């Protein structure tokens, strides 16, 4: 919302400075985004008179002017404008001045060998509007040397950012009212309209109004004004409109624009000669169209309210006028319309047609219904004053909907919400200045009538806000929050869990990335399991139209981008949601990829490429960190018949980690074919931890740990080597070995695995060591022999293995 200082002063008696106004506006919630103060910008620019004009000796298009600057004497200025002439008064920018339009600093310079001691300025260079014919020309009676800002009588432009609730501040009068409540001046009386309507018009509002139209337009009014001259808009009016960025069109149109900004009350003037028989609101018919004033043609739907004559829609109600009945220079007779439209209907039509107009902006937020007639009267007065003519009697139907209502307000609410005690007198004064009528009050309760322009107010809390925003948020004393009882705090283990995992992974060389939750449907398809993908109905682009079923594709894109940048060893992870159309719709995942060498290259040549056992260890460590002991986690290899690998994994080097029935992680090498599609030539290893599948630990909140009781007896280590079938999972053997005597065997570690020429094909040799830690006595040789032979027997029997010696 833009307005000028002079415009504000039409409604507000104040001598507050621009800075004071700026601070006050922001403090009451009308945030000032920008102030354009040409008086500041033009400080140092002065009025001069051109005394003589002669041709530049060396340039056809340039003139050498002598100008009279008043006290500072004559100066020589080179000028290229076509309208320079002797005796003309114009504006001079002297050395040191900065041109508002482009920020150029004026210096004394030589132009083709002739000195120029400044620059004569055009309107646009001074940010004062469009140029017509060169440099700006001023009234002959301006004194030479007068500051330009004084001579030009410039206005200050304010731009405020309005929150969507403050419809009342869409008009300059509403802003003035707020400022007056804050104590910045006094709100002026409303202007009196003293015109007399001189005739009764034949022109009628449509007699058969459809019921829906009356619902969406409960109050409609207008009048005919004949004998108008749609002349040039007077300067005071056009300059105000131009100052706030509107284009001056013609007197009639400008007057309606003016009322829209002045009161926040849009209205529309139709050329009566273009209207057939009568006018009124109705819903558009299917396949109706309208050529609107923005030069575009709109196809209307049956939900759109239009203002129509006997034949055609002449305006999209509350949004934009139509071309065919627009006022032109020839217009002599108009129908001036002012009505109240249902905000939701305007919002819907405006959105579906995609039209942004000041009228729509006001109506969809809710124009003051009581302003319908007031706006019509003010506009009529201005038209009669500017364009002449005669006004008919007012014609209308319906009544403004009742917005204003009474509300009981407990004074204690102010203190309850702010901690501030504000005396009753101040509260009443603030409310009354804002236009609330405080009609009845007892000791503790005020009866407040809410004015029709404050449809944002619907309860006591709104009244508190009104009082506080005017009284000043800055007056509210700051307090520390009282101590919070520890037992009322929610358990937020989940968040510290993420922070822990993040730090762990980063310490292992991973860098964290954050990628979009959506990707292209094409990529998503490559990573979808059985569940359906979820698509956005209104995506930004087809690259980002499907919610990701996996983090892996985004991680692969990150890898690919960085490989292209010349990096080679990388590890990335992301913690975030993946989506699919199952019951939960989304799951929290830790996804990670590794590519290249496990450690940095080193001159001792003992670095090695990453392999699947690295990502397996990453995943296991994370699960461990989340409270699951490694012994409870079972690795299952993907297998074509029983447990086929998802298509993005290498079927021979991938699998899952599970705890009980829950699959808690998946890991492996990615499928070379998939990597091709991502244009990656390197091997990539990946793991995904399914956080939501991890069983919640039932541990109660006890910090006490079991007593520390180390064994005093000597531990014993024994090694075993077996020859087994190649397809037997080693983990099964190791798990079973440790189960031979859980009390005694404290660990089982594989230390060698061999496949190759020295043994039978389709066999492998494994060697592991066990650690025996007796708790109650030192083991003697026969006890050790006993447990060894139990292990050997079990492995030979259960896995058809052969002990190697």
């Amino acid at each position, binding site marked *: 919302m833009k307005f000028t200082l002079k415009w504000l002063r039409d409604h507000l008696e104040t001598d507050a400075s621009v800075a004071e106004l700026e601070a006050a506006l922001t403090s009451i919630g009308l945030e000032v985004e920008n102030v354009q103060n040409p008086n500041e910008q033009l400080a140092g620019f002065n009025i001069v008179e051109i005394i003589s004009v002669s041709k530049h000796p060396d340039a056809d298009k340039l003139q050498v002017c002598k100008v009279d600057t008043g006290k500072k004497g004559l100066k020589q200025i080179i000028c290229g404008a076509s309208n320079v002439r002797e005796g003309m008064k114009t504006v001079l920018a002297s050395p040191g001045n900065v041109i508002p339009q482009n920020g150029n600093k004026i210096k004394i310079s030589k132009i083709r060998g002739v000195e120029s001691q400044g620059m004569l300025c055009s309107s646009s260079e001074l940010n004062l509007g469009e140029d017509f014919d060169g440099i700006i020309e001023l009234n002959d009676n301006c004194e030479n040397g007068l500051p330009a800002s004084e001579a030009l009588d410039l206005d200050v432009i304010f731009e405020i950012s309005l929150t969507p609730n403050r419809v009342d501040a869409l008009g300059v009068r509403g802003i003035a009212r707020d400022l007056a409540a804050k104590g910045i001046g006094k709100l002026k009386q409303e202007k009196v309209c003293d015109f007399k309507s001189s005739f009764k018009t034949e022109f009628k509002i449509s007699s058969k109004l459809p019921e829906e139209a009356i619902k969406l337009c409960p109050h409609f009014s207008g009048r005919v004004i004949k004998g108008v001259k749609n002349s040039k808009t007077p300067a005071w009016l056009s300059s105000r409109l131009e100052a706030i960025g509107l284009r001056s069109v013609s007197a009639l149109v400008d007057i309606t624009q003016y009322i829209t900004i002045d009161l926040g009350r849009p209205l529309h003037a139709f050329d009566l000669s273009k209207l057939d028989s009568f006018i009124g609101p109705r819903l558009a018919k299917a396949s109706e169209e309208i050529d609107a004033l923005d030069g575009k043609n709109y196809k209307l739907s049956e939900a759109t309210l239009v203002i129509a004559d006997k034949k055609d829609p002449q305006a999209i109600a509350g949004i934009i006028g139509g071309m065919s009945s627009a006022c032109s220079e020839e217009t002599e007779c108009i129908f001036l319309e002012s009505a109240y439209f249902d905000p939701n209907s305007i919002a819907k039509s405006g959105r579906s047609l995609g039209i942004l107009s000041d009228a729509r902006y006001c109506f969809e937020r809710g124009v003051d219904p009581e302003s319908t007639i007031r706006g019509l009267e003010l506009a009529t007065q201005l038209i009669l004053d500017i364009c002449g003519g005669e006004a008919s009697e007012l014609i209308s139907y319906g009544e403004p909907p009742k917005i204003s209502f009474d509300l009981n307000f407990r004074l204690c609410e102010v203190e309850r919400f702010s901690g501030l005690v504000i005396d009753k007198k101040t509260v009443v004064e603030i409310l009354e200045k804002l236009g609330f009528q405080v009609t009845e009050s007892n000791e503790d309760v005020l009866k407040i009538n809410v004015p029709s322009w404050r449809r944002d107010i619907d309860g006591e809390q709104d009244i508190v806000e009104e009082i506080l925003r005017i009284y000043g948020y800055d007056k509210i004393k700051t307090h520390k929050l009282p101590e919070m009882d520890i037992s009322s*705090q929610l358990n937020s283990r989940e968040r510290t869990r993420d922070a822990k995992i993040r730090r762990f992974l980063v310490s292992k060389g991973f*860098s964290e990335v954050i990628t979009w939750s959506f990707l292209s449907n094409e990529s998503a398809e490559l990573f979808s399991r059985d569940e359906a993908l979820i698509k*956005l109905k209104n995506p930004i682009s087809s690259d980002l139209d499907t919610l990701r079923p996996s983090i892996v594709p985004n991680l692969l894109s990150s890898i690919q981008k960085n490989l292209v940048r010349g990096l080679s060893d990388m590890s990335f992870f992301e913690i975030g949601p993946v989506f699919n159309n199952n019951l939960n*719709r989304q799951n929290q995942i830790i996804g990670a990829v590794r590519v290249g060498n496990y450690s940095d290259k080193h001159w001792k040549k003992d670095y090695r490429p990453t392999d699947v056992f690295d990502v397996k260890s990453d995943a296991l460590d994370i699960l461990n960190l989340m409270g699951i002991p490694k012994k409870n986690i079972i690795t299952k290899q993907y297998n074509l018949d029983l447990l086929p690998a998802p298509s993005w994994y290498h079927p021979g080097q991938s699998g899952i980690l599970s705890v009980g029935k829950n699959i808690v992680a998946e890991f492996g090498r990615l499928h070379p074919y998939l990597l091709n599609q991502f244009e990656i030539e390197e091997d990539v290893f990946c793991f995904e931890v399914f956080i939501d599948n991890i069983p919640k630990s039932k541990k109660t909140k006890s910090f006490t740990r079991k007593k520390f009781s180390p064994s005093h007896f000597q531990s014993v280590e024994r090694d075993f080597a077996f020859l087994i079938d190649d397809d037997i999972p080693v983990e099964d053997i190791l798990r079973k070995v440790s189960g031979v005597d859980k009390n005694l065997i404290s660990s089982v570690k594989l230390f060698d695995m061999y496949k190759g020429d020295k043994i039978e094909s389709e066999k492998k040799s494994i060697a592991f060591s066990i650690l025996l830690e007796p708790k109650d006595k030192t083991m003697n040789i026969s006890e050790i022999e006993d447990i060894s032979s139990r292990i050997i027997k079990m492995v030979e029997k259960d896995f058809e293995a052969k002990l190697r010696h």
Partner: protein
Amino acid sequence: MENLDILCKKIISKIDEADDLNTLNAVRIDYLGKKGEITKLMKELTNLTHEEKKSYGKNINTLKVKVLDSIENKKVYLEKKIILDNINKERLDITLPERSYSSGHIHPISHTIEEVIEIFKPMGFSVAEGPDIEDDFHNFTALNFPPDHPAREMHDTFFLNESNNGEKLLMRTHTSPVQIRVMKDNEPPIRVLAPGRTYRCDYDITHTPMFHQVEGLVIDKKVNMGHLKGCLTTFVESFFGINNLPVRFRPSYFPFTEPSAEVDIGCQRKDGEFKIGDGGEWLEILGCGMVHHNVLKACGLDPNEYQGFAFGVGVERIAMLKYGITDLRMFFDCDLRWIKHYGFSFLDKFDGNN
């Protein structure tokens, strides 16, 4: 006597000549071993008279002590020499590069969220989370957005197909719906933070379709705007590590709070440089307000009994301001060089005063 002197000189010179431990040991055996020369002389003492024994024996003993000392000294010398010789051979150029397992970096968004949490934790806040896919009720209706209100349109919502039971589904446009979930599931007093991803259908230099917010909520019986101001002033001061940072609460509008405020902090923009602190200018940093009575009602709380405040912070925004990050889109570009530059080590502290 003379013989002993000669013998002594001979032995000492042999000890001197010995240049390794074996030779030295051989010298010791030659003279002091069971059949050694000195041992022999000692044995011969028995053949002498008492008088002779007394003087001669003393001299031999002196000789023996002297030889032993010399051998011991020489031994220490030789052992030391061996170590020194080895050390010289073992010399390495330790300026050669170390073996390195470089650690990675934490994304500035995660770090910033952790920082925010660490600041609010001592004030009794815990962390709550909610789904990214929300329904219309939690994202809008319960937060007092009237249907068809322009405020809804300002949210540029991503929509999804309706769920099987007819709920309107969307990607949450803010983390405020977590407020609703927390209030419905918990009894006051409540103090929570809800960090997370949020989505809006907008993509340009200053907007990304996905971004992060931290929402805060306090519900109790007597919490007022004074507490809101105190709590958020502490937050901005700690986050930016500036004591007495100018803070301004300016009236604003959010459907779910009333009174609502925007919080500005002091800053200075001069010659293209930007600095947070006392500089006479203001910068918008977060939105807040007292929870609207309609929101409390929607969550089954009695607005006459309970009241409280809520606030929302844009994570990318405060991260950019604090760490001088200029391009919003780089947060999501996965450029490892950028992550190394702006990211954090796993040992970096979470607090605001670093």
